[in-house]
């Protein structure tokens, strides 16, 4: 994947993830043009279109358009599945996700995306594992300093104890 864009029906950008190096100006230009092109399409049309030398795969979920640019050899149908998987992850995380969730918690949307895709490719094909990793990272984010000398395998136990400590001390 070269990039992924999320934008609203009015053309406002909600998330942009670029996997290729481009200048800010170029990114803005591409975004503007692509948003225009996708918004101009009618509801029943194909989810795939050719744009410049890329294949664009897009899908609309409620008021948000999820738009990915893939290369020639990539499988369009599986990209649709990737988009769907990402939406499912957001849905599980936020609990019935809507556009406002993504607006007000945009950094979390990025964290989830980074746990699912790496360098433009899917890194974890199990929904459960992605959500688990996010959960752990979130806990670390909230409560931890990262000076644990112990090896990774013990990390799970330690976070468990961390949770316990929180419960005991009644921290919020």
């Amino acid at each position, binding site marked *: 994947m070269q990039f992924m864009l999320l934008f609203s029906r009015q053309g406002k*950008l*909600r*998330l942009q*993830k*670029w*996997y290729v*190096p*481009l*200048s800010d100006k170029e990114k803005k230009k591409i975004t503007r043009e692509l948003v225009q092109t996708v918004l101009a399409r*009618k509801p*029943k*049309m*194909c*989810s*795939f*279109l*050719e744009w410049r030398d890329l294949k664009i795969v897009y899908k609309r979920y409620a008021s948000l358009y999820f738009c990915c640019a893939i290369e020639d*050899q990539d*499988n*369009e*149908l*599986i990209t*649709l*599945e*990737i988009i769907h*998987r990402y939406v499912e992850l957001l849905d599980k995380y936020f609990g019935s996700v809507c556009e406002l969730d993504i607006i*007000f918690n*945009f*950094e979390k949307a*990025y*964290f989830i995306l*980074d*746990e699912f895709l*790496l*360098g433009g*490719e*899917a*890194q*974890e*094909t*199990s*929904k*459960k*594992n992605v959500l688990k*990793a996010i959960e*752990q*990272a979130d806990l*670390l*984010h*909230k409560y*931890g*300093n*990262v*000076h644990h*000398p*112990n*090896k*990774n*395998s013990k*990390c799970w136990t330690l976070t468990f104890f961390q949770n316990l400590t929180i419960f005991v001390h009644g921290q919020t």
Partner: protein
Amino acid sequence: MSPSVPLQEMIRAIRSARTQCEERGVIQRECAAIRAQFRQTDNGGRSHNLAKLLYVHMLGYPAHFGQMECVRMIASPRYSEKRVGYLGAMMLLDEKQDASLLITNSIKNDLSHSNQYVQSLALCTLACMGSAEMCRDLAPEIDRLLRSSNSYIKKKAALCAVHIVRKVHDLGELFVPSARSLLSEKNHGVLHGAVVLITELCERSPETLERFRKTVPDLVQIMKGLVISGYSPDHDVAGVSDPFLQVRILRLLRILGRNNEAASDAMNDLLAQVATNTDSTKTVGNAVLYETVLTVLDIKSESGLRVLAVNILGRFLLNNDRNIRYIAMTSLQKIVSTDHNAVQRHRGTIVDCLKDQDASVKRRALELSLALVSASNIRSMMKELLIFLSSCPPELRAQAASGIFNAAERYAPSKRWHIDTILHVLTTAGGDVRDETVPNLIQLITNTSELHCYTVHKLYRALFTDISQQPLVQVACWCIGEYGDLLLKGECQETEAVQVTEDDVLDALEIVLQSHMSTPTTRGFALTATMKLSTRITDNVDRIRSIVSIYGSCIDVELQQRAVEYNALFKKYDHMRAAVLERMPVIQKNSLGQTNGELSEEPMKESQPGKVKQEETALPPQPAGQVVDLLDLLGGSQEPLQPGSSVGGSASTQLTAAPSSAGGDLLDLLGGFEPTPLAPAPTVTVYEKNGVTLTLSCEQQSESGLTVTLTASNSTDSDISGFTLQAAVPKSVQLQMRAPSRDSLPAHGGAKLTQLVVLNNPNKVNLKMRIRVSYTCQGSVVQDMVQVDSFPGL
């Protein structure tokens, strides 16, 4: 200093701004606060500040002052700050920024951090925006992580390695051993990463591809496990077990099996199994089937499997889901040349897709339909294609029109059908056809002499329906000019004849001339056609004369030039008018600038070989009549000689430099033409009779190019006027006659007449030339001929 506002409040404030101006104000205030905060020493809200800045950046406002803050935060011991810092790095820094190098060290440290989530941040950032230098620096670290025991890290390291290989191809070698061993992992995430990495390595280097071919059995094993074995809740998507991994493995198998019999054999069974067992009711199943089909068609699969694959595509074509239909057509396009018959079976469905609402589907269907046209289905296919052309979106018109022309040219069942088809296209999509269409069509029409009557009637009618389609109007004008007499005769076998009078025809042409929709080229056509009619009609020659003289003062240089020349034809050269405006000879295909490059050696080539433009502008005074005359003269000769043209006004393109501001100038220019100074070359007298002498000298310009200079002089007591020379050379030699320096020879050798002849003798045949001399002396016309067999200096 205003207190820092929490992130969510700031977002709310920005969203509640009612105008762009208000929003800018809010953002400016916030940015100022953020900048101030950055300058302060460590406080608890650093990550919030950076997050605010990132939000502002996403709205499109500049945020480069946050770059150094990102660098600082990445180095922080707090995970929260690291996390937002890395996110900021991925959003604000890219490899073009200098600051990106500063984080290399932080990434290096974090890659060996004890906490896997920190390692994960570093890996993610490196894979997202790592520059070539960073990749080179950190590649050994990544390789080490590929061998760690932690699956969570291994899967990320694998994809990070993919990024590194894409950036620095040579580093691929480094990862080959670890990639190989990763294939024996059980964890799906790691397997997926490993397959992607191996795919990347194989695509980059053929030697690596060879080495990884041995993994085909392992890959087949893994796939079998996914397809056959039981339900695995973790990875199941609508009944398909880990479709993401399946698709990647299939893609890798495709690369490994390409052009290799052994590998292809090893995967035959598996592919058949996947193709038959995968549930195709949902998109996810179709995704796997699609990848399977692509693989089957690309490797050396056995024929049964290929048939299975094409049938799957056929099923896709009938699917209700538009996406699936689109995919099917894309794949069929790839194999239409190799498995033509298999694809032909689905022609009906494909043609139906031409009527789909979606432009992408339409485009695919058009390409596929054009590829499927053959001699047996040309009539029905063309019907569909023409219907499509009338309703197709504008961006596809040009492609459709040229595709139709190509198909018509290759498979036309009859000439009339061909002409009808082209006319149909010109009426529906005339504005989108390419420029060569007009001369091609003209050439086609001249070749079909039996249909001249039919064609001109049809075109005349078409002219009245729509005058805005320029190619159509141009062809119509040309035909009316050329075959106007057939039009006026009023009878036609093939179609219902229109009863036209000469006035009607001239009216039509005048409408074209005066219409604001006509381009200058079209006007040129119309003017020439009007002129040609002067020999084909009887009553309204005066009207033509007046039209032509009006345009003698036209602003457009081309039109003015033509009008002036035609005027001259009326006035001074009236005796030649009939001959000049005779029917055009059949135009040879190759002489119309076809790109196959070979020049035809057929006789009757136009005087200007090759250029299309010149064909159009040189259409006027073609000495077709003289061609016939010369041949009659040379009737008994063995060698078919190539006639040249030497009428003064013929080479209008040769005189493009002539500014034609007033009527008389052009002709004066002919008289005042200064010959190029002759190089001292041996001259030989080739003709001497009745006081008129003609000498010839020649000069070799290039290997096959030769310039011959003919000089004439008059030693009699009386002036000679209307002196013209014509030349003919052997078939393979190309001839071009320049305008003579004058056309009269005063008595007693008062002035000499010079004319240059440029020859091109690529085949180096024995050069001969026949020259015909014609002049008027003391009221009587004298014509004579001389043959030159040997050229001096050659």
